[in-house]
């Protein structure tokens, strides 16, 4: 709900501004070039693997969006029973060799060694929650009609469940971050639409939409939540910062052990 309120407020504010005389243009800004940082993203889930870890580097703002891949790193995932040394299958992309399927409740430790530096992250896979269904709803906001996907699921009683949704429309992954916690509806049935504010994308009749629901741990939730808030556009955004992650800030990115529940519909 926080998201809904904030997003609607943002949209309202923007609508207001544009109702007056606001205008936007692209400008040149002189930005510092910070030292490059390693970016590690990886996940493990409760459906069959293999799973991958990706290692890249940050670049200066003015450069093209081409992020150098880091090869020849040593990447190890340890689930307390198996120590899996990942194999580089493409530049900067490492794949598990021994861990076949993630197990809810199990804690995974990721160790990455790059040129003598070690980066460690730990993530515990939460208990699985399945989506009951997804449906499409039509909503009108500020005179604009749009469609959203509504995942429906029952949150288990007890605080501390965190959810992430990934939406694919005609097999294209939308970049929006959708996260939820059960703070304000513990043990309840959730039917929150996946609002994508300020998006130029649309869901139309006949589109095939798939939704992945992930049960994520708290630090991943906080990471994604902060990442979303920091990308807040315009004057209503919060002061941006690098989100805290489970690498303790030593590397950018995140490592998440999560469950996975998937549903697909064709929008009627």
């Amino acid at each position: 709900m926080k998201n809904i309120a904030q997003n609607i407020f943002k949209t309202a504010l923007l609508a207001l501004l544009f109702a007056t005389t606001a205008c936007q243009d692209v400008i040149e800004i002189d930005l510092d070039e910070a030292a490059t940082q390693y970016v590690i993203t990886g996940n493990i889930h409760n459906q069959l693997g293999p799973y991958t870890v990706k290692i890249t580097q940050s670049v200066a703002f003015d450069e093209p969006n081409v992020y150098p891949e880091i090869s020849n790193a040593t990447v190890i995932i340890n689930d307390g029973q198996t120590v899996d040394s990942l194999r580089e299958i493409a530049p900067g992309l490492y794949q598990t060799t021994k861990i076949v399927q993630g197990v809810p409740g199990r804690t995974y430790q990721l160790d990455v060694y790059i040129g003598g530096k070690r980066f460690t992250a730990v993530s515990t896979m939460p208990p699985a929650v399945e989506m009951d269904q997804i449906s499409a709803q039509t909503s009108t906001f500020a005179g604009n009609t749009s469609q959203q996907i509504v995942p429906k699921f029952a949150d288990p009683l007890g605080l501390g469940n965190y959810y992430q949704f990934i939406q694919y429309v005609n097999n294209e992954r939308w970049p929006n971050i959708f996260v939820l916690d059960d703070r304000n509806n513990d043990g309840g049935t959730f039917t929150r639409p996946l609002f994508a504010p300020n998006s130029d994308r649309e869901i139309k009749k006949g589109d095939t939409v798939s939704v992945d629901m992930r049960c994520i741990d708290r630090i991943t939730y906080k990471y994604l939540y902060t990442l979303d808030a920091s990308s807040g556009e315009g004057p209503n955004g919060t002061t941006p910062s690098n989100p805290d992650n489970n690498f303790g800030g030593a590397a950018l990115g995140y490592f998440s052990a999560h469950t996975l529940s998937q549903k697909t519909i064709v929008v009627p």
Partner: protein
Amino acid sequence: MQNVFKTSLTIVLLLFLQWTTNAQNNTVSGAITDQASGETLIGAAITVAELPGKGAASNEYGFYSLSLPPGTYTLIVRYVGYTDWKKSIDLTKGNQRLDIPLADNATLEEVEIKAIKVGENIEKPVMGVEKLSMAEVKKLPTLMGERDIIRSLQLLPGVKSGGEGSGGLFVRGGNSDQNLILLDEAPVYNASHLLGFFSTFNADAIKDATLYKGGMPAQYGGRLSSVLDMKMNDGNNQEYQVSGGIGLISSKLNVEGPIQKGKSSFLVTGRRTYADLFLKASSDTSLSGSRLYFYDLNAKLNYQIGNKDRLYLSGYFGQDVLGFGEDFGLNWGNKTGTLRWNHIYNDRLFSNTSLIFSDYTYNINLRSGTNDISITSTIQDWNLKQDFQYFVNSNNTLRFGANFIHHNVTPGQIEASEESSVNIDDFDQRRGLESAAYLTHEWKATDRLTVLSGVRLSVFNVLGGSTFNTYDAEGNLLTTRETERGDIVKTYINPEPRLSLSYVLNTRQSLKLSYNRNVQNLHLLSNSNTSNPTDSWVLTTENIRPELADQVSAGWFQNFGAEQGYEFSAETYYKHLYNQIDYRNGAEITANNEVEKELLYGSGRAYGLELLLRKKTGKLTGWVGYTLSRTERKIDGINNGNYYPNRYDRTHDVTLVAMYQLSRRWNVSANWVWYTGNATTFPSGKYEVDGVTTYYYTDRNGYRMPDYHRLDLGATFQARKTKRFESEWAFSVYNAYNRKNAYSITFRDSTDNPGTTEAVRTALFGIIPSVSYNFKF
């Protein structure tokens, strides 16, 4: 600190005894009013021709008291915009009551403004004080035709706006919640309309506005940065009067008159915007379905009972309504009510008792599919104030009193429809009692030295009735405690010493020094770059400690020119702030009952230099102001625990304001502002997470927004004027050379050059001309 308090109390009591036993003076006292309307005049200066250096000024209720050795004297009363008043009085045989009506000189000498309070700025021990002339506010250029007190104050050194079109005040490095904004003594929590573009104060209803940037006298307390003390007009007690205005986005009407001539009067002022009517006419459905307006209503009654008592009842009611169809609604508003009783115990002891109610509420309605949610948040105060002013003799004035405020904060009452997937209990209500006792002594120690000393003892009781948690530095729960109503959960006691000195070097020069400590127990939590009506006010608790500020400042004041028509001042200040509050990274602040675990605490510092050159007389009046300043915060967990610039830190600020009386009918004005950019956080690199471009940040607020500058022009034309009817046209051009000042700068993937990123500037207001018509009959 306790010792300082005790010692100063003892000294003052000793002095008090000495005066009362040594009183052989006779006193002349009374009220100073406008002859035509009966409005009391605040701060009129009374001098004695035979005794240069002796004098008094009328207080905020127009009352004055001057004690002199027995004799015959010539009293001279001067007040801006009024003809000098002179009368000889016989004070040989006891005390005298003398009410002084002053005649408005506008009808006689419209063209030139005379400097009348010669040297008052030189002599007065208060510094960092700006008194806004309502006559000036009416001449300055406007935004969309709305005369705005807050926006006019932003043109003074040391006072900053939050950015384009912002109605927030940022005084000497403080935040916008650190200003005590009083309307007829009632605190106003959200002083802005329409997301900050307009202030809640209808300039037509305001008689006097005084801003204290430092050296606040001890009768004021509760906020760190500044006090903006505004008094509403009382209402004409001589004849009925209707005035009003029709503007581009709003209209207003003011009706006032006597209930019983010379004794009592009423005043009602209303204003409503109608920008939404234009929206309705729009063919764009996203605009026509929206609601967007605000209104204000000020009302006041006053009644004189005998010549010793006067009652005032005043109220303010304002509301903003913003919405889109039935899907979204956001309403917010302030309500205040003040009942005051002035009583003159004797010629030298003036008392005022106030009972004040103040309420700020916002409400959000959301509907999306089956989710229908309404959130209401309220802050409500009851405030009892007793203030005494004791005019001991012409060299000593004492002011003392007490103040009790009961705060009740309801952060969120949530109503959700049955089917909605929201299931929240109401948030914990918080209650607190803020009490204070104060004593101020204004002492003319010698002909050259004036001392204003005082102390305020403030006590804050965190009151029970809800659940209180404590958290460790990481935000983990330590203890939880259920409390009953009536329990005192925690008590904070803080003495606040205040001291101001003014030393007159000669009739044209003086030096001033001041020190003040201020305490704040109500805090506004905001994580965004603009002030939102939904930012939440929280009370001090066990986790949130009272904010403290110590400020020292020094100033040099110099007048020059014929009739001291030019005033120059240079003031510097250093301020240290304690127990400042900020959010953790990624804090969840809306609909969060445990918001305290999302907070971080630290300290702050602010320092600066303010220069002001003012021309007060002649056809051309105005000022040039310059501010050099810095404001920083140091909070564990932000910026590696190092000092970082506050969001409203900006280094240079220049304002130029000019008003020129072209002819009897035409008055033109211009103001130009230039400032270097506010501190902001921009990326210093980028990377990719899950296929999405993500920005890498280094220092908090390590970058600067581009320089800002803007010119506004204004003109007023006095149309035909008769005894019965007068009218005026006011023209304004905001941002006359249509500069695209950056309201925000954001970063995004470029669509023109795929595979690259770009910076995007949003500019808010281009050139905005406006016209309004004002009338009076």
